[in-house]
Each structure stands twice: as C-alpha cells, then as structure tokens.
C-alpha cells in the first residue's frame, strides 16, 4: 500500500482521476491521456491496469459530455455512426494487440508509444480553435453518397451554420488508426478523431469536437469488453477512476466556460508534455534502449522531462502567437 489504508488509497486515486479529468477537458485531450501517465508515474500502477481503468473511464466522460452536445444538435450522430465502422474495427485490433504485447511482457513498447502519441497529439490540440469554420470545399462523390451534410446553430456567432463534408474514405482510414490507438493505449484518441473529421473531411471545428466526444464512448466500449474478459480491469482502480475522471471532466468544462484568460491553458499543455516525455523515458529505460537503463535514472529523466517540456511549450507558445498575429488575431486559418 502506497497511501496506508485501502480507503486512503481509494480516495487518492479518485483525486488523481479528478486531476486527470480537469486537465483532460481543459486541454481538450480527454481524461485518458492524463490518467494513464498519472497512474503509472505517480501511483506505481502497472501500465496494463492503468490502461484498462482509463479505457472504461473514458466511456463515462464521453457519455457525460456528449449528452449535452447531442441535445444542442451540434454533434452529428449520423456522421459519427458512419465513422464508427472504422473506429470499432480499429479498437478490436488495438485491444487484441494490447493483449499480445502484454503477454509477451513488452510493456515498454506501450510506454514508448504512449509518450509519442501524447506528445504528437499536443500540436494539433494546440492548433485547434485557431480557426472555426473551414473554407468550403467542392462536395465530392462521398458527400452525397454518405449524406455528409448538416447544420447547427452557433450560439456565439449567432447564426446557423450549414456544412458539407468531403473525403469520407480518408476520414474512415484515419478513424481506423484512432480506434487502434484507443484500444491499444486506453485513450479516447480525440486528437486523431478531430484530425480525421477536421482536416480530412473538412467539417467545422464544433461539429468535429462534439461528434468526436460522442464517438469516443462507442470506441472505448468496444475495447473495454475485450479488456474485461482478458482481466485487465481492476475493480478497485476502475471504480475510483470512473468516478474521479467523470467529476473532473465536469469541473473542467465548467471552468473552461468561465476562464477569460485562455493563456492559462499553456500551463496544462506544459504538464501534458512533461507526462509525455516521462512516459517516453520510462519506455526507453524499461526496454533498455541504447543501453540506457543504468545511466538514465529516475531523477535524471524527471529533470530532463521538466526542462524539455518547458522549452517545448515555450517555443510552441511563441510560434502560435506569431501565427495568430499574422492573420490579425482573427480566427482564420493562417497557412
């Protein structure tokens, strides 16, 4: 026992879940991306169970937030269901790969991959919100065939936005990988889902994020049932994290609506990049890559992770600021 009695232990995990939920929703990355590193780095949870607990908690947060967005009619259920064909297939492949990897005791691969995925999903997440409405593209064959049209009322812009999606096939391909990562790493892989719908299918940002939220639950449920039977869901852990992450994401979304100074999000991005780098190092140490197991001590990798993450986020911050000022501070695309 790390924290004394089982009751203390439980409450501390709930707190960790709340922390993960708050940061996950403030940054838009989702609770799982924060929960897995927090559980493995600070609580000493084996990554297999951290991933299992995270995956099932992701369904709760997705259902919790999606109920609000679907009611407002922003999330496009039809487009979401269509893309789920690929994500659920990906989730099955991902969950089976996870079982294969853990039975071969190759957990270091999971750490390494988790670190890489977390770090690479930071950039599209930071870029998100710089532009809200994509430039209209000519509808293609799939726009009509798969009924990729829809509309919603934008409260802030006070207008009804009509949109048409394109390149359904490319969206499906990206969604397969989003599902794969979800099943393999226990995350919602919202960043990749957004990439698929925003970049590939040219849907408005609001539709993309809310539909992605709705989809995450279906994808995570597919993986969770396989995890259940294979025995990667600890009752004690999963009960604590499901409660914690749900509460945390609720708090996070309320805070997000209230904070006027969006700059504060950069602190959270710095925390996320630290977690990503630390996971990467954990993978390198455990896998003994470059024979670094002895030389790269916990303290050393911790310090390097802190330093690199501060530097990285500072550079990204300056880069993003510059990008925005070129376009006159508007929410238009800047490339």
């Amino acid at each position, binding site marked *: *026992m790390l924290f004394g009695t*089982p009751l203390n*232990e*439980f409450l501390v995990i709930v707190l960790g879940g709340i922390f993960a939920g708050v940061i996950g929703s403030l940054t838009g990355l989702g609770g799982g991306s924060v929960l897995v590193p927090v559980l493995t780095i600070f*609580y000493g*949870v*084996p990554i*297999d169970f951290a991933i*299992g607990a995270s995956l*099932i908690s992701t*369904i*709760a947060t997705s*259902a*919790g937030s*999606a*109920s609000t967005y*679907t*009611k407002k*009619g922003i999330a*496009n*259920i*039809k487009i979401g*269901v*269509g893309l*789920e*064909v690929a994500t*659920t*297939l990906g*989730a*099955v492949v991902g*969950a*089976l790969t996870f079982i294969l990897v853990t039975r071969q005791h190759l957990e270091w691969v999971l750490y390494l991959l988790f670190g890489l995925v977390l770090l690479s999903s930071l950039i599209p997440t930071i870029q998100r919100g710089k532009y809200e409405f994509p430039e209209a593209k000519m509808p293609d064959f799939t726009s009509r065939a*798969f*009924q990729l*049209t*829809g*509309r919603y009322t934008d409260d802030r812009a006070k207008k009804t936005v009509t949109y048409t999606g394109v390149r359904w096939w490319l969206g499906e391909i990206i969604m397969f990988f989003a599902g794969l990562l979800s099943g393999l790493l226990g995350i919602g892989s919202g960043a990749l889902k957004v990439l698929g719908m925003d970049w590939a299918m040219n849907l408005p940002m609001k539709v993309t994020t809310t539909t992605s939220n709705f989809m995450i*639950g*279906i994808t995570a*449920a*597919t993986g969770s*049932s*396989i*995890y*259940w*039977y*294979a*025995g*990667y*869901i*600890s*009752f*004690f*852990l*999963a*009960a*604590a994290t*499901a*409660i914690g992450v*749900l509460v945390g994401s609720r708090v996070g979304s309320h805070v997000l609506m209230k904070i006027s100074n969006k700059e504060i999000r950069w602190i959270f991005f710095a925390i996320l990049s630290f977690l990503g780098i630390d996971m990467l190092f954990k993978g390198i140490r455990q896998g003994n890559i470059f024979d670094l197991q002895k030389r790269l001590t916990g303290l050393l990798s911790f310090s390097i992770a802190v330093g690199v993450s501060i530097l990285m986020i500072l550079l990204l911050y300056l880069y993003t600021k510059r990008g925005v000022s070129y376009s006159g501070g508007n929410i238009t695309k800047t490339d």
Partner: protein
Amino acid sequence: MEEISQKLINIVSIILKGAVFLSMGSIIIGVILLFVKNGGDGYSLQTLANYSNYSVAKSYSSSIFSPAKIPYGIITLDPIGFISLGLWVLIFTPVSVLFTSLVDYIYNKNKLYVVLTFMVLFNLFTAIFIIPSFVHL
C-alpha cells in the same frame, strides 16, 4: 438536405444521461459496500486493493467475474456485483445509442445507414460476445 431527426437526438441524450447516473450510482453503492463488508466476491479488501503487485492484481481483476454473475451479485448485495454492473452499464450505453439510431434509420428508410449501423453493431458484438472466448485465460 436531410434533417437529423430531433426525436433521435433527444432520446440519445436521455439514454446517455440516464446511463451515466445509473452507472455512477451502482459503482458508488458497490464502493460503499466494499468498504463496509471489507471485501467482495469472497476476496478481502486488501487483496482487491492491491493493484501495484502485478500478479495479485491480474489474479483478482475483471476476468474472475463474468457479467453473468451480476444478477446474483446484486441480490446478495455483493460489492463486486454492483461495481461490475456500473461498469457494464457503461459498456452497453453505446450499444443502446446505436440501436436507437438504427430504429430511426429504419423508420426513415435510410438503407445505407441501416447497413453502416449494423456493421458497427457487428464489430461491437464481436468484441463483447465472440472475442472473449478466445482471450479468456
């Protein structure tokens, strides 16, 4: 342009909200019982809470409690029964959402989306009912 049925949206929203309440309620009852009874499903609390020891955690995790044991667990006020019910409600929430939209597509004669929803349901059911028999230890 085809409208997204407002009724569908409302039902989906209600299902999602209800499922979260039911699931969280069940998990919380389970956790309270777990601490009151100092264990569950015949295992001590110390054993169930020992997540940092890999082999102990693996031996007393979800694979020991198949969903078929949930009804008996609920009747006997077993903590693991309640926690499992909460977690399985979460897993089945998306399934019910998919069924609702399937009904809507059938009603609106949207053949393509009936087929697509069936494909998603097929993947989900494969994951829930077929694959487990291969991965069970």
